[in-house]
């Protein structure tokens, strides 16, 4: 997840301009949602292609939610939770971390670039980290282009 070069893929100019990625962001109520909120009230600029879904804890993000998002054509999914040791429900984010790691292996087996699924730790005070995460993730998804769902039918 290190690439930050904007639109570095091999796509044509036209495709590049037309592509408006659909990005789903799951934010836990106690840290990341507050972080997203802070980014908002601080008027930090971000690419507008993401939709935030608030969940009580990142561990509430059932793998089915992520698979469902990709099934419905999401180009990228970001799961954001409290930093290790900070989860409101003590160990929720540790479960999340395992699930997302395994889900990324699974998605790769399904043929997806695992970069389309990202996990980030964002605290309530980290509005800037939220902004940076969104910018970087949008870059990655832009570079990958539209979701391959339905490509092999």
């Amino acid at each position, binding site marked *: 997840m*290190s*690439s930050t*070069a904007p639109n*570095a*893929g*091999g*796509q044509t100019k036209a495709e590049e301009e037309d592509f408006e990625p659909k990005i789903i962001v799951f934010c836990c109520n106690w840290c990341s949602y507050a972080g997203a909120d802070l980014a908002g009230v601080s008027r930090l600029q971000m690419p507008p292609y993401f939709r935030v879904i608030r969940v009580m804890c990142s561990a509430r993000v*059932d*793998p*089915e939610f*992520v*698979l*469902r998002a*990709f*099934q419905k054509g999401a180009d990228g999914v970001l799961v954001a939770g409290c930093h*290790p*040791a900070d989860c409101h429900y003590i*160990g929720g984010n*540790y*479960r999340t*971390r*395992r*699930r997302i*790691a*395994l*889900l990324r*292996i*699974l998605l790769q*087996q*399904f*043929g*997806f*670039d695992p*970069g389309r699924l990202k996990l980030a730790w964002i605290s309530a005070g980290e509005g800037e980290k939220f902004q940076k995460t969104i910018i970087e993730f949008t870059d*990655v998804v832009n*570079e*990958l*282009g*539209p979701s*391959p*769902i*339905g*490509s*092999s*039918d």
Partner: protein
Amino acid sequence: MADKIKIAQYWGAGCGGCDVALLDIDAKILDVHALAEVVFWPIGFDGKLADIEAMPDKSITVSFYNGAIRNSENEHVAKMLREKSVVMIAFGSCACFGGTPGLANVTNKEEVFQTVYKDTASTDNPDFITPQTHLKVPEGEVDLPEFYDSVKTLDEVVDVDYFMPGCPPTVNLIALAVDAVAKHVTEGADLPPKGTVIASDKTLCDECDRERVETGRRIEKIYQSYEIKADPKKCLLDQGIICIGPATRAGCGSMCPKANMPCRGCMGPTKAVMDHGGSMLSALSSLLNITDSESKLSEEQIIELMMQVKDPLGTFYAFTLPKSLLRRTVTEKRKRKG
């Protein structure tokens, strides 16, 4: 013969096990015989599709369709039997969820043909001749079914009334279905509501009598079942052997754990679950060792921990890939740099 109901049994992309399973019901087969006349059963006796085609609509009481939909013939017969039958039953895991043949959804027609008609060691086919759906030869014209890119479930191509999961469905579940139909025919009892899965609504773990760790369940390490000698009394998952029981529908009597083997999930997902694999992935991730030093583990260590699950797709979707949310593999158009 006049009062007997008519039943049909067909195999799509299956292994034949489901056909045999129907014969496995011992004395119950006499009930079937007293009640029904088998009008079509390709594995059992010679029957012609044209004869079925000539029958009036809804003249067959029950059709048991086993096997998945792999080619246009499977689909054609499914549609025909649907028209001719009052009740259409998806019989076995292949018809219900794609089953083992459904794992072919990690590949496609082109790759399957490449392997089967070219790459296998015993194949000598330098011109790479593959089956054509239509061919003119001096003797006349021949048609072959079209092989599909993806394996489909029965309910993707026709309206299905009941689902009987299992690879193959067990004798007691078949007996349940036979009884329900018999009661309907002889006593006018209501059939179960449409869409009923003829099995249990619980999870397999509920009917498994192995001892589970009730609080603080955790797995230290994941083993393939051949790597350790499993304790015959304790829950297999607690011993680190991946058992799909927590995500799987009960009804088989937890046959595999009884034989000291982990469940592979042939009964399909439980009622509340959309995706069998996602559900098992969730259950397994929650069990893996979470310790006090957890917050110090790096992301790399977590990946290493989870890499112990060899082949998650094949493990978690061994019977249900075509029925999963993603249904099949996809191909990314672009590769990301670095």
